[in-house]
């Protein structure tokens, strides 16, 4: 018993020392807690459904950020990975009767293959050319899907997938925990040495080559990792909606992902996740106003980016926290001196 109290105290100390010192960390903690505790407040199927879809798209937006935000490989065809994940897991589930636990990871592996197939021709391309080429891939796949209606259901897509579980709460927890875990993994990747190399490639690829690093391999790795996470999002989506249709591959899907990520703040992972959690539910709730939906979306994004070119979340973060000029540790902006090195903050 004493031991338990000791551990609780230790845990509290860590929380107080590491989390409660910065508003951004408190926000992340609250985000986790609210998502996990939400069913205590409401079990409205409509709200649960929206949060599940939001979680799926949060994974998608973060996976775009991992590739394009960090390595600077502008992917305007991210729907490809989402669509490949969705269709592959749907085919495996409906035709081969593989349960979702198997079909979603296998679908993600198919998306990794897609990442390789797209990545290799894109290695030599930069900027606009890269963007246009990536844009073409999901369109090509759509063409193939329409050409093989016996397999893919053509316009109608593949329907009748099984869900992971039929329980409302089961589905809820499955999706939010998957989202929280995958996004944490993606953030950890960007925080590692591999992430540092991704970042450096975006800044100056030639300089990374002269560091003795095989940038080709790292760029392909970024394509594959991004494809993997987006593929999982696609598989989850197909199984949750119980259909994999052509809408998963549409150009508008690719663009929406880019807009989410840039709105939230590219090259942060948490920015795109936050952006999806703000924009997706918002657009769902103005559904009763369908003719203005897209317009509202466009205006919000436009004004945000006009005033916050770095994206919403980095802007907010700069308002509530400031960096110590001496030791570069972040502090609450209300503090006068740094919490670590006690240097003045102004």
């Amino acid at each position: 018993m004493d031991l338990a109290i000791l551990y609780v105290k230790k845990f509290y100390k860590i929380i107080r020392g590491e989390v409660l010192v910065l508003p951004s960390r408190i926000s992340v903690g609250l985000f986790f807690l609210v998502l996990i505790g939400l069913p205590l407040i409401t079990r409205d199927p409509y709200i649960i459904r929206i949060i599940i879809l939001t979680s799926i798209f949060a994974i998608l937006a973060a996976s775009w950020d991992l590739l394009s935000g960090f390595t600077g490989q502008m992917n305007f065809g991210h729907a490809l990975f989402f669509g490949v994940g969705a269709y592959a897991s749907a085919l495996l589930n409906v035709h081969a009767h593989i349960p979702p636990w198997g079909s979603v990871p296998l679908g993600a592996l198919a998306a990794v293959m897609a990442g390789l197939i797209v990545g290799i021709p894109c290695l030599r391309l930069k900027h606009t050319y890269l963007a246009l080429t990536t844009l073409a891939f999901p369109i090509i796949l759509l063409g193939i899907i329409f050409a093989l209606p016996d397999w893919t259901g053509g316009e109608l897509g593949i329907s009748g997938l099984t869900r992971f579980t039929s329980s409302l709460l089961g589905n809820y927890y499955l999706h939010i925990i998957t989202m929280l875990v995958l996004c944490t993994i993606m953030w950890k990747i960007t925080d590692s040495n591999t992430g540092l190399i991704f970042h450096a490639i975006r800044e100056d690829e030639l300089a990374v080559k002269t560091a003795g690093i095989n940038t080709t391999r790292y760029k392909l790795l970024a394509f594959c990792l991004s494809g993997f996470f987006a593929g999982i999002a696609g598989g989850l989506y197909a199984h949750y909606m119980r259909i994999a249709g052509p809408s998963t591959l549409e150009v508008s899907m690719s663009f929406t992902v880019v807009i989410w990520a840039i709105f939230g703040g590219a090259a942060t992972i948490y920015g795109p996740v936050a952006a999806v959690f703000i924009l997706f539910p918002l657009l769902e709730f103005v559904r009763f106003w369908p003719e203005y939906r897209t317009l509202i979306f466009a205006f919000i994004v436009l004004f945000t980016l006009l005033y916050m070119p770095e994206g919403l979340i980095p802007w907010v973060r700069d308002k509530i926290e400031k960096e110590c000029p001496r030791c570069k540790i972040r502090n609450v902006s209300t503090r006068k001196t740094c919490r670590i090195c006690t240097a003045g903050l102004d």
Partner: protein
Amino acid sequence: MAEILLKVESLTKRFGGLRAVNDVSFCMQQKEVLGLIGPNGAGKTTLLRLLTGILKPDSGSVIFKGTELVGLKTWNIVNRGVACTFQNMRPFRRLPIIANVMVYCLSPRSMHRGEWVKKVEDKAMDALEFAGISDMALEKASVLSQGDLKRLEIARAVATDPELLLLDEPFGGLSPAETDLMAKSIHRLHKGGRFGRLHSEGPAMIIVEHKLQQLMKIVDRIIVLNFGTILAEGTPEEVVKNPQVIEAYLGKEGD
């Protein structure tokens, strides 16, 4: 000592009709310091870029420690022990200075060489210490002055622990005081030894430079390039007395 480290044979690079590097051949011994001079547009930078595989030559060969480098990728050449710096420095501007060097500590060669140094940060910090900009390690690279950017290039080169180091105008844009400091750093690096947790055998060097006075003190031998071809070759004393060189290059400075 007399072992051949680098053998360049009739290397040629054309840009359209222009022969930027034309039939250049020379040899380098281990630990040798070679100065490469010549007027603007002589093809010095192009020659260095051919050696590191950033550019592909139209013909010719580069043998480094018995291996043909022509046709190999830049990252591969760097991992074999050739490092280079850029004339117009190429920092990762939005990354902290320490991260700029950490990237250079992450190559297979660098990881293998300093295996016993657990943390990449420590290695990068020692390289910054050597270059004399460790106090700014956490600043963004975009705040660095011209002189400090040159030092960052040196720190990066040290981090890869090369056997052949190619320096493209290391004194370019530096004040006389900064030039002296840089010359001392280069000399110290060439002597080799321990720099914090880093270790250097003392690489051979090719130094491209305009400031001849400084260069003469460091180099064993000078190659003069003009219009992509070797105009003269010899010890610093021989080269400055060569009438062709005076006409093509030094004469202009005397005006």
